[in-house]
């Protein structure tokens, strides 16, 4: 723990070492890999821009979502219609995503990061604390001083949802769409209600991840871009003082 004069702070602000190297590295690899996975995924989606529930689904079956024009080309990788190239990108990136995610999980379990920083404590989940945290968020009020050393409970729950549910769900629903993997685990698509349901859930989950990223970026901006960015690059984070 080091004390430095933080940028433009009238009083001295305490600087703590917030993010370990593994967290920072896997975070930025995820930023790149998930962005490109999303873009190549949209290109793949555009090859058949309809979603179904159940085991099968094609032109003559009922689609619950049908984007006649698909997603705009500027949002896709490559940014022209090319299913073969988009697939090659997507599956290459999927390997990086799985390896990166597995490294994060493994290191986080071993060094206690997940238990210490991410999983909410009993006190976090007390109704009074939850309610207070909700009010703080609604009022765009961020923890200051000592309270800012730890993630707040809503933040922890959001990270648990993304790290524990949404990201693994992307891999599992993705594998459910593979006819090869399905022969290895014939029960897998059934967990989601069939291969087309798995494809729909893959799409919905991707949307939820995008939603998380938007909220995450808004929070970064509200909490102080420079400080937040620095903490995810160098690990050093200045505890916000009271007059925020």
């Amino acid at each position, binding site marked *: 723990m080091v004390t430095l004069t933080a940028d433009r702070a009238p009083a001295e602000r305490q600087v703590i070492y917030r993010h370990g190297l593994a967290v920072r590295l896997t975070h930025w690899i995820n930023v790149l890999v998930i962005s490109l996975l999303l873009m190549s995924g949209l290109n793949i989606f555009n090859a058949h821009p309809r979603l179904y529930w159940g085991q099968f689904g094609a032109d003559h079956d009922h689609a619950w979502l049908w984007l006649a024009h698909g997603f705009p080309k500027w949002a896709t990788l490559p940014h022209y219609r090319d*299913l073969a190239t988009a697939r090659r990108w997507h599956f290459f990136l999927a390997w990086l995503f799985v390896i990166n995610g597995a490294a994060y999980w493994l290191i986080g379990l071993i060094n206690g990061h997940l238990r210490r920083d991410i999983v909410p404590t009993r006190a976090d989940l007390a109704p009074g604390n939850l309610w207070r945290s909700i009010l703080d968020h609604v009022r765009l009020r961020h923890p200051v001083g000592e309270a800012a050393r730890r993630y707040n409970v809503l933040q922890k729950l959001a990270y648990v949802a993304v790290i524990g549910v949404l990201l693994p769900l992307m891999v599992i629903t993705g594998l459910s769409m593979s006819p090869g993997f399905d022969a290895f685990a014939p029960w897998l698509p059934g967990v989601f209600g069939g291969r087309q349901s798995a494809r729909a859930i893959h799409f919905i989950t991707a949307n939820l991840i995008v939603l998380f990223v938007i909220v995450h970026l808004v929070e970064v901006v509200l909490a102080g871009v420079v400080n937040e960015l620095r903490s995810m690059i160098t690990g050093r984070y200045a505890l916000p003082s009271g007059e925020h």
Partner: protein
Amino acid sequence: MGLLTRRGLIGVGAGGLLVSGCDRLTNAPAVQRLIGHGQDLSLGAQRLLLSGQPLAKQFTAAEISPVFKVNGSVDPGTEAYHALLADGFATWRLAVSGLVLRPDVFSLTQLKAMPARTQITRHDCVEGWSAIGGWTGVQLAHLLGLVGVAPGARYIVFHCADNLAGSRDASGLYYESIDLVDAFHPQTLLAYAMNGAPLSVGHGAPLRLRVERQLGYKQAKFVMRIEAVSSLAGIGRGKGGFWEDRGYEWYAGI
């Protein structure tokens, strides 16, 4: 708010750079080679997982799609094909040649007289849609047993009647290939019937390949000739199939 707006603009600008940068990257040969390694990993992983030759899931008759989408070639459309179709494929012959010990030709009647297998499976198109259908045919393993695979044969190539590229020469003819691991899988069929009826033109009459555990483009329709080869080089553009020659993976397990 000013900060937000400025950030937003920077974000959009960076996004634009990223997008155009990606396309330049996509087209660079070194990047193509790099991301191609993902395919090698996928093939290796799937071969490992499927080393016990498990069967693709089979469904019940009640789960069959009401309408099985016709995709790719709807009709080969050539005079030769229509002549075969006109007499119910009575004069059609399946030639089995290449690296086999006893090259032979088979009529549709002969194929139908062989031990038959019926399986209701899910067909997954590379585009993303799925359809469930029932297929009846002769196991490729049975046919290969009759002609005998010669030493050195590594792939079985299926030559088709449809010219999907619409070319005037033979370069646009559909073809596909699988290796012996898939060729001898019990669910790999030369199917002549679908959902209990003779194969329709749209679904590949008189004979189509069913190689379950792989995507739709491997399920070659209008099969005219089967060839056992040691290498895929020299066939089409050398990548092992019509769509493979156009950038798609040869091993279509994902």
